[in-house]
């Protein structure tokens, strides 16, 4: 080593590796208007598709007359189910083992359902043609209530009416999809029925929608000369789309290239396969021209995947001193017209059975009934792992209700029931193995940070003032402690359409010491190009600034299952680290050769291999990379590349403590959010800046969902919330300010100890906001108020409690 050698600290800093708040490499293009989203793609001769959609929620399609539309100048084709039937494409399989109409086949089952697909020269002509397609409907009785669906004689799905079993077992009614159970039912009932204290309540998590700012869309381009289909689109799982496209179309998979360009937010909305994609592919095959389809906002809210809509009947029991003894959840899940959930195949209710939460509950049972109704299909994981936000909301409400029954402070009730640090890895009653956690430390830190005791004292003072008529505003303290389950998942039990839920990374080191890495995931704003380069920088000693990350092109990227369910860091991040380690292993051999020592006599040091005990003798990774390409090294292949497919041994279990303090105006139903504190433990922190950004964003979606955001229908199945006037999306003005905090408990089984964070704030945030509303009205008798807590529903709760005189 000489004077010119930077010291170790400088070399580490130069890498911009793990743990540093590296600025995002994506931002240069996004801030200058140079993003490349699907609607920015223009191909020569490109045509445009648009849908004729059903105005009715349930109706028979008597006839479709497209003659006037076809006569319009610029209209190329109008596709109906009849046109798709010979190709076997009028229906398509869903990710949940059901099938879904691509275009209305005899009847429509929800408002906004795709009935015919118009292909035209441009969007304006297509829109005109949509108006000219005449469809005659015969209205049928509409069912929007899942409980009524199970009692009704009206059969929604005539195509499977006679089938008494489906993809997930027995169907006990024509409108029933499945019953999925986990845990010990009779033992749970026994404990609860004989318990000292029991809280019982129906908890509804309303229907909402991921509603990314960019809607769903695609461009299908069939090159008939070469027999190749290229499909650009807003796909959170491009490789799966390729496989599905191949299975559906019969085009061999090597002749299909799927590209996810920049994606303007996904949040689960862009996981599934939609009729628009299928119709665009067919239209391109038929016309021989590229066909673009981009849905508008109303179509997005009315027809592409919704989230939640879980009616959760819960019972939780405890001893007199507050030790929880059992938990039971009986769920009625409204799946809409088709079961198009995007869950791992074997989990029709996702990972809802994480609903024992952060608590050591000895016995539990979960039963979920899936039900068809006349609503849009979906049930996707909207900024959460599969049904985990429903589970977290359920248990965090049940805990609050149990606290009421016990007359105990809800923070204390949580504390005495947390899984202890020494219990990890922890086997839950519903079959999960929690990898690591230190809940008590996180909880104590959170309570201290907000001065919990001080807040309770202030709340009591306020309540007295309220009772004396001095104020009409009550104060609520919303507590939430959540455990997520992310990183799906182990191939042994997690697959989507048979594809194991591994993920992948392929790395090529260039001769001059820079690199490209490609992954099976796809960023929708999470900043993968920034953070995955950081993982790699720390693993292989090449600066993150010299590493290009590429995703989303199935012709170049290794197969992976995509980005949703906070799986990118836990799965693809692990693949990245392990592929990096393969690079390092080969680099070690090269370094040893160059330094003329045995392999075991060199060791990795930040950005180089040094001879053990002689740090002045080293080869940098740049030197090693060059040697890999220009020297014949005995016993070592030229080049420096690696690929890793990572099958996670377990999920990861991020956790956190969120506290929201709000004032609730009992007269107007308005709330003022005074404070939102969010402590996250996502294991090893790759980029604190990006983590904080994810937490802010997730909390805002949680705030929106808890307070006002919903997909609502009237009794006729008309969607009442199909534009951003009525679908609550808060502006900067309404959105609260957030304080973030963290603890760091690495995952023991993940190569770098990271757990994933993108979805935690939504999972933990919703109960924090909702519990704050409940907590404000609790002293006056409120037990349960279904979300969303918009002005009139809060007002109604107050009214029902007699607070309006």
């Amino acid at each position: 080593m000489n004077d010119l050698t930077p010291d170790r600290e400088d070399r580490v800093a130069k890498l911009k590796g793990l743990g540093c708040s590296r600025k995002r490499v994506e931002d240069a293009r996004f801030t200058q208007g140079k993003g490349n989203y699907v609607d920015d793609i223009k191909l020569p001769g490109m045509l445009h598709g648009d849908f004729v959609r059903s105005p009715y929620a349930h109706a028979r399609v008597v006839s479709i007359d497209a003659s006037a539309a076809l006569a319009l100048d610029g209209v190329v084709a109008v596709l109906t189910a009849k046109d798709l039937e010979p190709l076997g494409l009028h229906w398509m399989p869903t990710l949940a083992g059901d099938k879904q109409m691509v275009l209305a086949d005899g009847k429509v089952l929800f408002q906004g359902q795709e009935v015919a697909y118009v292909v035209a020269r441009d969007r304006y002509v297509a829109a005109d043609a949509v108006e000219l397609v005449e469809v005659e409907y015969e209205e049928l009785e509409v069912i929007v209530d899942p409980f009524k669906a199970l009692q009704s004689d009206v059969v929604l799905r005539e195509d499977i009416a006679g089938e008494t079993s489906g993809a997930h077992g027995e169907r006990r009614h024509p409108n029933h999809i499945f019953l999925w159970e986990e845990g010990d039912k009779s033992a749970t009932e026994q404990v609860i029925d004989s318990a000292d204290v029991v809280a019982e309540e129906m908890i509804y998590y309303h229907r909402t929608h991921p509603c990314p700012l960019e809607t769903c869309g695609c461009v299908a381009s069939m090159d008939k000369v070469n027999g190749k289909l290229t499909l650009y689109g807003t796909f959170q799982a491009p490789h799966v789309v390729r496989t599905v496209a191949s299975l559906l179309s019969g085009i061999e998979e090597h002749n299909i290239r799927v590209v996810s360009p920049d994606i303007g937010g996904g949040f689960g909305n862009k996981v599934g396969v939609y009729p628009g994609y299928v119709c665009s592919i067919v239209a391109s095959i038929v016309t021989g021209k590229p066909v673009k389809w981009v849905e508008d906002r109303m179509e997005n809210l009315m027809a592409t995947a919704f989230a939640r809509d879980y009616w959760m009947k819960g019972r939780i029991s405890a001893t007199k001193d507050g030790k929880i003894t059992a938990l039971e959840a009986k769920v009625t899940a409204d799946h809409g017209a088709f079961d198009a959930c995007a869950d791992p195949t074997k989990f029709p209710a996702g990972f809802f059975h994480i609903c024992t939460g952060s608590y050591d509950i000895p016995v539990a049972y979960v039963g979920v009934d899936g039900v068809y109704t006349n609503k849009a299909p979906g049930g996707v994981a909207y900024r959460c792992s599969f049904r985990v936000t429903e589970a977290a909301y359920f248990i965090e409400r049940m805990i609050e209700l149990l606290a009421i029954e016990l007359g105990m402070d809800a923070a204390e009730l949580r504390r005495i029931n947390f899984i202890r640090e020494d219990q990890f890895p922890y086997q839950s009653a519903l079959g999960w193995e929690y990898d690591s956690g230190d809940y008590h430390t996180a909880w104590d830190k959170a309570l201290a940070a907000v001065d919990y005791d001080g807040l309770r004292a202030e709340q009591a003072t306020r309540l007295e003032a309220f009772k004396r008529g001095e104020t009409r505003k009550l104060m609520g303290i919303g507590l939430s402690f959540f455990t997520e389950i992310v990183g799906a998942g182990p191939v042994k039990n997690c697959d989507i359409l048979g594809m194991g839920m591994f993920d992948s990374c392929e790395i090529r080191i260039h001769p001059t010491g820079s690199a490209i890495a490609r992954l099976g995931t796809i960023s929708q704003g999470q900043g993968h190009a920034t953070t995955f380069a950081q993982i790699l920088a720390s693993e292989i000693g090449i600066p993150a600034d010299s590493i290009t990350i590429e995703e989303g092109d199935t012709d170049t990227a290794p197969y992976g299952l995509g980005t949703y369910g906070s799986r990118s860091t836990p799965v693809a991040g692990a693949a990245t680290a392990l592929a990096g380690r393969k690079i390092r292993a080969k680099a070690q051999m090269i370094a040893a050769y160059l330094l003329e020592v045995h392999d075991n006599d060199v060791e990795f040091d930040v950005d180089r291999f040094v001879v053990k005990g002689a740090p002045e003798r080293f080869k940098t990774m740049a030197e090693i990379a060059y040697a890999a390409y220009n020297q014949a090294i005995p016993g070592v292949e030229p080049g420096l590349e690696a690929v890793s497919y990572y099958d996670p041994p377990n999920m990861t279990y991020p956790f956190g403590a969120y506290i929201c303090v709000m004032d609730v105006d009992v007269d107007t139903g308005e709330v003022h959010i005074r404070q939102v504190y969010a402590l996250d433990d996502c294991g090893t922190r790759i980029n604190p800046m990006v983590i904080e950004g994810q937490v802010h964003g997730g909390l805002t979606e949680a705030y929106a969902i808890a307070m006002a955001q919903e997909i609502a229908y009237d009794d006729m199945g008309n969607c009442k919330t199909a534009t951003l006037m009525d679908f609550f999306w808060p502006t900067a003005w309404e959105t609260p300010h957030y304080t973030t905090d963290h603890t760091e408990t690495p995952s023991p089984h993940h190569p770098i100890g990271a757990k994933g964070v993108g979805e935690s704030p939504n999972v933990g945030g919703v109960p924090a906001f909702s519990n704050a509303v409940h907590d404000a009205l609790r002293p006056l008798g409120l037990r349960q108020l279904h979300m969303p807590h918009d002005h009139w529903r809060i007002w109604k709760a107050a009214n029902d409690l007699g607070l309006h005189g």
Partner: protein
Amino acid sequence: MIPAAFEYHRPGDLPSALALLREHGDDARVIAGGHSLIPMMKLRMAEVPHLIDLQAIKALRGITIDGTRVTLGAMVTQHEVIDSDALMSLAPILGEAALQIADPQVRYMGTIGGNVANGDPGNDMPGLMQCLDATFHLEGPEGTRSVLARAFYDSAYMTARSDDEILTAISFEAPKGGFAYEKQKRKIGDYATAAAAVMLTREGDTCAAASIAMTNLSDVPVWSAAAGAALVGTDVGAEAVSAAVDAALADIDPTEDNRGPVAFKRHVAAIIIARAITRAWGRA
């Protein structure tokens, strides 16, 4: 969301605009800022074969202040209202209301004339203009005429303006005393769940005059004479406010929508009106 085809006209003066309206009859609509009409056209809920853009007509622009008389050209935007120091000092209630309309971008485009002429019960300016006892100036084939804001609205989207007329200006006496425009909404960009405009003058400890109007609580804006009368001669104490609120509630007829059921709206209206009265009194 793509509108049907139409012919576009941009007349340079009012006579040309009126001639176009006459020529195309029911097939023509005038457009000012377009933030009510264009979304309706994109949803194909409004069919407009001939669109007459008023932006080039200078006579429809400008804020004129003549002593205490204020005249706003129909094409004055919400942003211009907020941006006018003279107006903000003479009639600050206008700015207070304008700032509660939509968002910055919409306020740059949205006009006072469009807001009052459209007849959408959700619009804020009609109620405010009734509170101010403003006069709307119309021009049509028969010449010009004036209609009081309080007599302009028949039902939702139906007004005293006939199809061949254009609303050219709004005028009112600069208000005296205290004022408040109070609005509850779900978020920025939303229409009112309930809104109230209140103006009061004070003589000593007594209310000398009062004007109260409400937005989005009926299919038209509602100016409640009885509510105002309930305050005049009182100390605007709790009892008087309560009487005014009761009187105002007797004059409204809200409907259920996504913002909530009727009972809720009536309750919120009571709160909003009381708050507006209290705030206006504090400024009187």
